[in-house]
Each structure stands twice: as structure tokens, then as C-alpha cells.
């Protein structure tokens, strides 16, 4: 189920101050697609993600979400763009002074006219979808790392976004939880048609969910591979790409 480009990254150069991390990045994400961003640690995956959601200003180039430039958008236009996306951060970034339920209810309270009990039901539904309903009234500090990640995804879902950005959702999770998370991504993609941009290292999840993968490289600071995960594994010429897929695969098979 892929269609029009929903995100367009055009000639993006990203970095911090005068340090360039990525340069000349060009790619589109099509509506309904599940895209994974691969790359070694420190290769700039999170940086790319932060640029795509307009959190960090690109050094040059632009990022369009449904045709609106996330960098220059202001006021209502910017809010509209933000309403379309949900982000689950690498560390969870749950608000520690609120219960898990309130974390999810927060944006619903701020941005909708739904009555209190509706918000409560919706928040519990989102939590149920990630398998965390029982922890609704716990504080973030009382949850394990994996639970926090799932809660972060539930929070990202709270406004029914069109696009969901996940930064290393399965890092630090056990294989079963990680597989459940993949299942969740597929379900959300099929039932809600959500577009996913997922930063991940997990080969198993890449093959399980991704329609497409792009790989960024620290040395060349560019995208060194773009295609279906299977094709990248079987056909890529690039040594880094082969290494990424094969070395892990060897380990995985052992």
C-alpha cells in the first residue's frame, strides 16, 4: 500500500554547528510505506530523523511533509504539520512527573474538545494496543526500558498521526517483545495506513516490517544503499552494506 510521496527530503545537509554529519541527502517516503533507516552507531540516523521532523534545522536543503517545508513552516502551518506526525524518541522521553496515562492524555486534552472520559478511554485503548494497559497509572520511573519504549509509541499514537517516527524502538528489548513491536507496527500500518520511518539495527525487524531500507554511512556521509531489504542483502555491491547484512546474518544463523 504505497502511493504519493508523503515526505520529501531534498538535498539535505545536516550537522551540528560547523560539523557536517550528512550531506546531499535525497529521498522520498511514500504514503503508507514502512521505511527503515540503517547505519552504524554515530552515523547520523538520529540526526537525520531530527531533521526530518524539524527539530534540528538543516545546514542546507529542505524537508517537505505533504508539501509543507517543516523548516520554514510557522504558526498554524507548523502545528498542522506536527499534528500529522508522531515521534517516539530513543530514550522514551516520557514526562517523568506524570502517569503513563496522563502522558498520553496530555495532547488530547490540549488539542481536542473530547470530554474527560473519552480521553481516558482513548488513552487506555492506545495503551492496550501496545500491551501496557495494566501500567496506565504507573509513573515512567516504575517501568522497565522496554515498557517505556512501548509507552512512548502509545504516546506518539495519541493524535492518530499519519506518519510515525520511531528511533531505535527495539534496541534493548528482548526478542519476544521486539517481535510484538514489529507485529504492532504492521497492524498499525495495515489498519490505519500509517507511514513509518524507523531507525533500527535489528535485522529481524528490518526483514519483518520494512518495505524499504536506506543506509547512511559515517565515512561518506551519504546514503549508500536504498531499496528493499532483501535486495540489499542479496544484490548490494557496497561492502558496508554487505557487511551489515551478512555479518549479522552469520551471527544470527549460528
Amino acid at each position, binding site marked *: 500500500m504505497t502511493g504519493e510521496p508523503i515526505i520529501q527530503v531534498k538535498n539535505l545537509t545536516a550537522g551540528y554547528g560547523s560539523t557536517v554529519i550528512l550531506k546531499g541527502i535525497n529521498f522520498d517516503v511514500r504514503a503508507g510505506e514502512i521505511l527503515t533507516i540503517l547505519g552504524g552507531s554515530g552515523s547520523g540516523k538520529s540526526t537525520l530523523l531530527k531533521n526530518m521532523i524539524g527539530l534540528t534545522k538543516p545546514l542546507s536543503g529542505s524537508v517537505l511533509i505533504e508539501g509543507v517545508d517543516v523548516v520554514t513552516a510557522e504558526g498554524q502551518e507548523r502545528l498542522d504539520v506536527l499534528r500529522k506526525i508522531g515521534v517516539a524518541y530513543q530514550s522514551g522521553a516520557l*514526562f*517523568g*512527573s506524570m502517569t503513563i496515562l496522563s502522558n498520553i492524555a496530555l495532547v488530547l486534552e490540549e488539542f*481536542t*474538545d*473530547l*470530554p474527560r*472520559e*473519552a480521553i*481516558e*478511554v*482513548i488513552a*487506555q*485503548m*492506545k495503551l*492496550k*494496543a501496545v500491551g501496557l*494497559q*495494566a501500567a*496506565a*497509572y504507573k*509513573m*515512567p*520511573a516504575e517501568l522497565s526500558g522496554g515498557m517505556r519504549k512501548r509507552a512512548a509509541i502509545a504516546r506518539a*499514537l495519541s*493524535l*492518530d498521526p499519519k506518519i510515525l517516527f520511531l528511533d531505535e524502538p527495539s534496541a534493548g528489548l528482548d526478542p519476544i517483545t521486539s517481535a510484538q513491536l514489529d507485529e504492532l507496527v504492521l*497492524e*498499525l500500518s*495495515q*489498519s*490505519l495506513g500509517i507511514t513509518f520511518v524507523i531507525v533500527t539495527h535489528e535485522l529481524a525487524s528490518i526483514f519483518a516490517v520494512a518495505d524499504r531500507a536506506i543506509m547512511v554511512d559515517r565515512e561518506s556521509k551519504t546514503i549508500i544503499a536504498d531499496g528493499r531489504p532483501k535486495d540489499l542483502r542479496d544484490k548490494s555491491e557496497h561492502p558496508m552494506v554487505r557487511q551489515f547484512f551478512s555479518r549479522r546474518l552469520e551471527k544470527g544463523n549460528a
Partner: protein
Amino acid sequence: MGIMDGTEQATFRLEPGRDGQATLTLTGRLDRDSTASLWRQSTDRLRELRPKRLIVQVGAVEYCDAAGISLLMEYKRILEQNEGQIEIRDLQPQFQQLMALFEIDHQVLPPKSLGPVANAVHNLGRWAADLFSDFTAQVSFTGEICAKLLKTVLHPGRLRRQDTFLMAEKAGVNAMGITALLGFLIGLILAFQSAAAMQNFGAEIFVADLVAIALFRELGPLITALVLASRSGSAFAAELGTMKVNEEIDALVTMGLDPVQFLVLPRLIAAVCMLPLLTMFNLLFGLIGCGVVMTTWDIPISTYIERISAAATLGDIFGGLAKTFVFGTLIAGIGCLRGLQTGTGPSAVGDSATRAVVSGIIAIVVADGVFAVIYYFLGI
């Protein structure tokens, strides 16, 4: 005869039937906005009607998101409360998937809180227990610090010298500006205020006696200690608290490094060495402040200085400075203890810093009172 209502986007129609049966028909788009407007009306009507069996017709719903599903969940809950049955009919397949994903069989309730009286009793007991455990923690921490301080004095090589100097710079050198300013202003104000009384007797010169003794014995050490408590006591608590929250303290312990030796002693030693020096600095500027006022009354500087040396004894000065060693120990010890006691969560560090300053100030004032009694009996 049905009740029909809604918005342009979505409508609902509730039709009572035979035998307590009812049909609720939803049409249109069930998104956040339309659900928000349907919610109250439709659930209120449903509660009034109390059907034994409800059929929800959703065949004509063209769009439905999580908000729409939540509305169906709410109908289900209302029916369950009234011991009725619910049947959701003709939900389109793509929304059925959504329903499967989000459907909840029951709502998790918030943990029960106690009633107001029980709560007050609970809090009182909690408060008393906390106070007691706080006190014992303080005592055992003081003991630990003393033991380790003694060890460090015997083996000075074990002290982290660089950290100690860094802390001395932060807590001492960087506080010189504010200490001087406060000293100057206090000297100035004190001289000015007491002048009013003294001038009635033509005894302006005795302002020097008053200011010097007040500063040396009480105000200088006290004000400087308050500066240290608010600048550095809070900083110590925040630094150690952040380390605690990030599990850095645990990392130290598992590496076999003692947090007290490694983190607390450098701060303690720095504070204890710096506070007396800062106090002297504060006193100097206090006297200068007073001197400025005296010169406006045409009293020569030399007379002023003579007056001070006649009025204040060495006992006054050293009695005041002796207190600062105790104040410094209290401030650094409490700051570090509060830091190490930091709980979890983002507000924990802030709470620790606040607690460090509050208990630091209380400790200073209490210690000052104890000194006053001791000095009285010793005749200093």
C-alpha cells in the same frame, strides 16, 4: 420515534424498540472532532434510556479512527453497567481491524486513595517516620564522613586533589564578588541605621564599635554561610543528585570506588577551607562599608581604625571564624547527603537541591544558637 442529533460530519439516531431493545445508528465520519460533539449527547441519552439490549448500526460510518472506536467502547461500558447487551453491526472490515487493535474489555481504574482523615493520619505518620529516618541518616552520614576524613588526613595521597581545588574555586573564588557586595552593603546599612540612635547622644564614633562587633561575632559568619549554602549546598546536591539519577553513583560503587571518598570529601574539604576565607573577605568589606558612612560624618579613617581595634578583641574575630568551620561542614555535608538521597524522576534533583538549601539554613541557624550558648558560658 427516534432521537436524532449530531453535526454535519456525523449523526446518531437512537430508536427505542420492544422489550427494552434499542437501535443506535451512527453515520458519517467518526473522527476526533465529530466524536467530541457526539459523545455527551449520545451517552447521556443512552444512560436515560437504559436499554437491555442495544444494537449499534455502524454500516454507514465512512471513516473511523481511535476516537470513534472509543465512543463504541463507551457505549459498551454503559451497557455493561446497566447489565445490558450490546451488538455492533456492520462495522466495515478496515475498522474492524482497528477495533481489534484497540478494543479494551475493561478500564483500569486509578489506584484508590485514602479518605481525607485516613490520609491526614497517614501523612502525619509518614512525616514523623521520615523525620526520624532523616535524623539517623544524618548522624550515620556524619560518622562515615568523620571516619573517612580521618583516614584521608592520615593518607593525604588518597584525596582527589584536583577535584578539591576545582570545588574550592567554584565554591570559594567564584563567590568572592557576591560575598564582598553583601558585606559592603551590610556594613553600610548597619552603620546608617545605628547612626540614628547614636547621633542623639553625639556618639557617632561608637557606631564603629557596634558594627565591628556585630559583624565579627554574628553577621559576617552567618551571611557568608548563607551565601555558601545557597550557592554551593544546592550545587552539591544537584551534582550528586544528577549522578544518582543517571546511575553514575552505582557505577562508582560497582567499580569499587567509594562515593563518599570520591565525591563528598573533596566538596567537604573545599567548603570547610573556603568558608573562613570568604568570611574574612566579607568582614573586610563590611568594615569598608561602615567606613564609608563614617567618612561622610567627617570622622578620620585613622580614628575609625583605632576605634575598631580598641572595641573588638581577637576573641571576637576568632570566635566568629571558629563557627565557620562548623557551618562549612554542615553545608557541604547536608548538600552531599541530600544529593546522595536523591530519588528517581525528573523533579528529584530539584527537590534535593531545595531540601539541601532549606536544611542547610536550618542547621546553620541552630548551630549558631548553640555557639551563642557555649560562648556565653566560656565568656568569649
